[in-house]
């Protein structure tokens, strides 16, 4: 299966061609946001404050910002700042701008202290961003295949259909992408508890398997430290209302989305994998952090696979553009959910339940849909002008 995509100077293939504006720290984030408002279609991510945080969290913020810049869906990048060097070494010019420059894509910088302050920087920034937009627009789509894709998936609002239909269909898609030489990432550390023994033996490196098991142990220990049954937190009330009874049941259904191929790395949040193939990202499951972290790792297309058994009639999609530069396919395997909220869905895998279609058949239809969207067809989420609040997943204390 093929599509037309944007081949970037570093060889990676994008499916969209955005111009991105990011700041090298919180104190220039508003400048970036103002510039992006004046420039047609420009994307911007305003990160949380990096000050008063430990090195791991600062690194996660920097990694998220530069990762978005490096995402192959981004055709050009403007980095703004108060000064060339940001507040901490992770945000210094060489580390921050240098990381994005490695991608070889059109890149401009703009620093308030070098161009006469905020007002002057705003004008100069709009000019630079408009020129970058034109530079990015010169990119032409070229022939690409499944093996050029980097996909990521999160499941949500899980119910019985998730483990029987929607997630297995995504698993088949992931197997196809990995077999073709592409990259696929899944995550949600809490939601492998009870299924980690099935995943850990699929890691090709014992070191990565140990990292993975340690991550699962860490979240379970943290949950236990609250002194509650984790069932009062996860499965979430929407899962229980739809018939899921325990975290183990949810997890065993959730891992079907990972397909059956060997696992490479246990990635940190927003970390790019070193090789193609299938990888796990150690992260909180929330759609407000995970799609952003996937995009920063390099995902060009995120999948939100919902059960939705508890959705109200006509409910809108719970998240639209949380990947900032990577669109989201919104799908379900639950026929009632699709009937209720299908207007906002990009795909239904419900045929697995209603017509007892083989998972491989629906998985292949999903593959075709992915290629259409990769080639430029808009997702339902992309038709909405929603800039939702998304955040970097941070684990440390604040000081």
């Amino acid at each position: 299966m093929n599509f037309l995509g944007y081949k970037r100077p570093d060889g990676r293939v994008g499916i969209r061609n955005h111009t991105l504006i990011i700041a090298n720290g919180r104190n220039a984030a508003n400048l970036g946001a103002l510039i992006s408002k004046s420039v047609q279609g420009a994307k911007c991510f305003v990160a949380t404050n990096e000050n008063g945080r430990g090195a791991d969290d600062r690194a996660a913020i920097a990694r998220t910002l530069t990762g978005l810049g490096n995402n192959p869906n981004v055709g050009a990048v403007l980095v703004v700042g108060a000064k060339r060097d940001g507040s901490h070494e992770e945000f210094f010019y060489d580390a921050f701008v240098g990381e994005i420059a490695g991608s070889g894509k059109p890149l401009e910088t703009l620093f308030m202290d070098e161009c006469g302050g905020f007002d002057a920087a705003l004008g100069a920034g709009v000019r630079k961003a408009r020129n970058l937009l034109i530079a990015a627009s010169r990119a032409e789509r070229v022939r690409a295949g499944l093996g050029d894709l980097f996909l990521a998936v999160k499941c949500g609002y899980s119910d019985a259909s998730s483990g029987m239909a929607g997630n297995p269909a995504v698993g088949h898609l992931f197997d196809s992408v990995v077999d073709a030489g592409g990259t696929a990432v899944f995550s949600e550390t809490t939601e492998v508890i009870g299924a980690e023994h099935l995943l850990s033996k699929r890691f090709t490196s014992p070191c990565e398997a140990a990292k993975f098991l340690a991550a699962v142990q860490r979240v379970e220990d943290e949950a236990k430290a609250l002194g509650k049954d984790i069932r009062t937190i996860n499965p979430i009330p929407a899962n229980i209302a739809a018939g899921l009874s325990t975290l183990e049941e949810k997890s065993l259904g959730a891992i079907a989305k990972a397909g059956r191929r060997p696992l490479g790395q246990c990635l940190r949040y927003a970390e790019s994998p070193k090789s193609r193939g299938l990888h796990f990202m150690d992260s909180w499951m929330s759609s407000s952090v995970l799609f952003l972290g996937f995009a920063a790792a390099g995902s060009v297309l995120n999948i939100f696979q919902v059960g939705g058994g508890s959705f109200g009639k006509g409910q809108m999609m719970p998240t639209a553009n949380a990947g900032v530069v990577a669109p989201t396919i919104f799908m379900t395997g639950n026929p009632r959910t699709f009937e209720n909220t299908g207007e906002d869905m990009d795909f239904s895998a419900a045929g697995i339940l209603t017509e007892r279609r083989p998972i491989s058949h629906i998985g292949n239809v999903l593959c075709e849909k992915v290629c259409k969207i990769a080639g430029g067809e808009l997702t339902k989420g992309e038709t909405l002008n929603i800039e939702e609040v998304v955040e970097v997943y941070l684990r440390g204390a604040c000081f």
Partner: protein
Amino acid sequence: MISVIVMNVADNVGNAIVDLKPLQTAIYELDGKEHSVSCQTEVPYGFKIAVRKIPKGEDVVKYAEPIGIASRDINEGECVHVHNIMGKRGRGDLE
């Protein structure tokens, strides 16, 4: 007509894919053969039904893996949910 899906021969629960009523006969397929279970309770769409008796303290098995344990005796044909099973993992309340 199939009204329950049992994922694996090792499983003692299946998922209703219709709304099941008491005394209704639910049909499921395993290894190409049809099996039936008589519903003892309402089992709403997407909820689990016991396809075998599960004594208190025994594993509830789905996907051929334990998803928790029975917190009381569960009869064949009964709805299986938070009222009669509990998880084994993340139990900070038991520490």
